[in-house]
């Protein structure tokens, strides 16, 4: 499903070169629920961005669903992000002028699905997330947990192969965090690969596999029996 070999990534800022990922080898199979841990600066977010084709890499190879992700045109990248990948962010990143339903439907809009049809599908997903009643509300009228549910629904609507979550519970209280994690586990059961970047131990313990990054290399890769 996800196959990474000898992945290097560095940022150049002025005269300084910051080597962030220093040769990662990683294989994640379809249907896994993985958490990536590490202190800040360990490169865990960078890894997630590379996996999400939001950022490029320098050396090595990255295969998603047996397709090599390198030298993609922005149009191609948009296609893959739209069809294969769902994103969940720490700060939710909902579009402020669209209501919950429209936010969820947005990926389908980019696929060219008609408004009526995509809003109907979006409502189904909101229903699955248990917030159908809030469909007509704007993001600023929702609580953090509700926002994240909307974001997760949005990540799922295009039936992606993998959901990438960058600190999805970072802005939530612990009770809500657990609810969200339960939601992820639920989604995972349907066969969607989920990769969660976090620095919270109790969050990572809810996943099935913990990858520890330290200074751009994989320090440990532990399979949990949940």
């Amino acid at each position, binding site marked *: 499903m996800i196959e990474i070999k000898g992945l290097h990534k560095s940022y150049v800022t002025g005269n300084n070169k910051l080597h962030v990922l220093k040769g990662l080898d990683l294989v994640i199979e379809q249907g896994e629920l993985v958490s990536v841990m590490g202190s800040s600066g360990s490169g865990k977010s960078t890894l997630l961005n590379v996996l999400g084709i939001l950022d490029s890499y320098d050396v090595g190879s990255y295969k998603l669903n047996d397709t090599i992700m390198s030298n993609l045109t922005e149009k191609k990248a948009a296609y893959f992000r739209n069809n294969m990948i769902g994103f969940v962010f720490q700060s939710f990143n909902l579009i402020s002028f669209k209501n919950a339903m*429209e936010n969820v439907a*947005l990926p389908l809009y*980019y696929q060219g699905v008609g408004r009526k049809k995509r809003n109907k599908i979006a409502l189904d997903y909101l229903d699955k997330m248990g917030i159908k009643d809030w469909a007509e509300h704007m993001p600023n009228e929702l609580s953090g947990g509700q926002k994240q549910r909307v974001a997760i629904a949005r990540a799922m609507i295009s039936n992606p192969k993998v959901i990438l979550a960058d600190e999805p519970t970072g802005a939530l209280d612990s009770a809500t965090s657990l609810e969200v994690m339960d939601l992820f586990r639920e989604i995972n059961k349907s066969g969607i690969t989920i990769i969660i970047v976090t620095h919270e131990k109790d969050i990572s313990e809810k996943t099935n596999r913990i990858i520890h990054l330290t200074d751009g290399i994989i320090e440990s890769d532990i399979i949990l029996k949940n």
Partner: protein
Amino acid sequence: MFDTDKWQEIFYSLKQNKLRSFLTAFGVFWGIFMLIVMLGSGNGLQNGVTQGFGDFATNSVFIWTQRTTVEYKGFPKGRFFNYDNADIIAIQKNIKNIRYLAPRLRAGGRGGGDNVVRGLNSGAFQISGDFPDMNLIDPVNIDAGRFINDIDIEQKRKVVVIGTRVKESLFEPDEEPIGQYIRIQGVYFKVVGIFSSKKSGERADGDNQAIFMPFTTLQKTYNYGDVVGVFAITAYDNVSVSSVEEETIKLLKQRHLIAPEDDQAIGHFNVEKEFKQMKGVFMGIDGLIWLVGIGTLLAGVIGVSNIMLVIVKERTKEIGIQRAIGATPMKIMSQIITESVFLTAFAGYIGLVFGVGIIELVNFALLKSGTDSNMFRNPEVDFQVAVTALIILVISGAIAGFIPAKRAVSIKPIDALRSE
């Protein structure tokens, strides 16, 4: 297809800062408004002046006699001379490219005492002996009856065509002038037609106080012998009348023993030259109007471009989110360009409507007040110009949006996402 999401986003982003959107739109509004009003006024000026000419054949020339200023072949300078009927035949024979040749002879005028009498009414009018072709060179509207015809010329009939002002001063309003007789310098003539000028202002006034009679009649009746006063000549449409003018003057100089270098002896007026000069002036005015108008418009469009850049900057993160969930660069660009085109076209359209409104209002006021001005008349903007302006607006809106749109997608999605 109407894309609700697209428009939702456009209105959202314009509503974010209403004052800013309004001021930006105002720049474009003002640009197109000024362009339209100036174009309309320019047209008004042009209409005013060209209508002063009526249907005057613009490729015409008038040639008359003055005093010689050079001694030649034993003749002293300061000599008076006259053209004669033989000149008519000579010109017709020797000069090519003449479409109409209308010799004219004038007797009496508005300056002197009353020369025309009918019953107890009288007046001083310009009497001119003309050929039928004159009405093709300097045309008038025939309101009743007819103009001079070839049989009049041949038979030297005592008939006249009178201007509307002549009719008003000699006849009662309810009288039918056609078939009636008027006395011109002691001789009776039958009125066969009434004309009115096609020109406007003072020129029209002058025309309407004239009386036309057959050229041959005037020569004979008032003992002019075979004298010709003025030659009115029109060249063929594809020929410049200036060459015809030159040849004719040369021929006349030879025939009347005038020194070839004596330019003062023969008076001439080239309508084509005047008209071209006038056209040049109007082209200059038009050019200036477009320059200033487009300049103002450009300033407005640059304003739009600037604001779009700001909007793109403000919404960098949103654009990043949209790209993260699968918006293609084309989609983002089309969004921004549509917004820019909408802003420009909408503001421009309102400017267009206001501009045309003002022009129409002025036109209405002018018509209502009934001023018959030689300078300004019927200001208008043709439909074509309005459509052109709108097309320019849409294109310039697209261009204004293009740079910001390019900027929006040039940022890597991840950088866009990170920006606050």
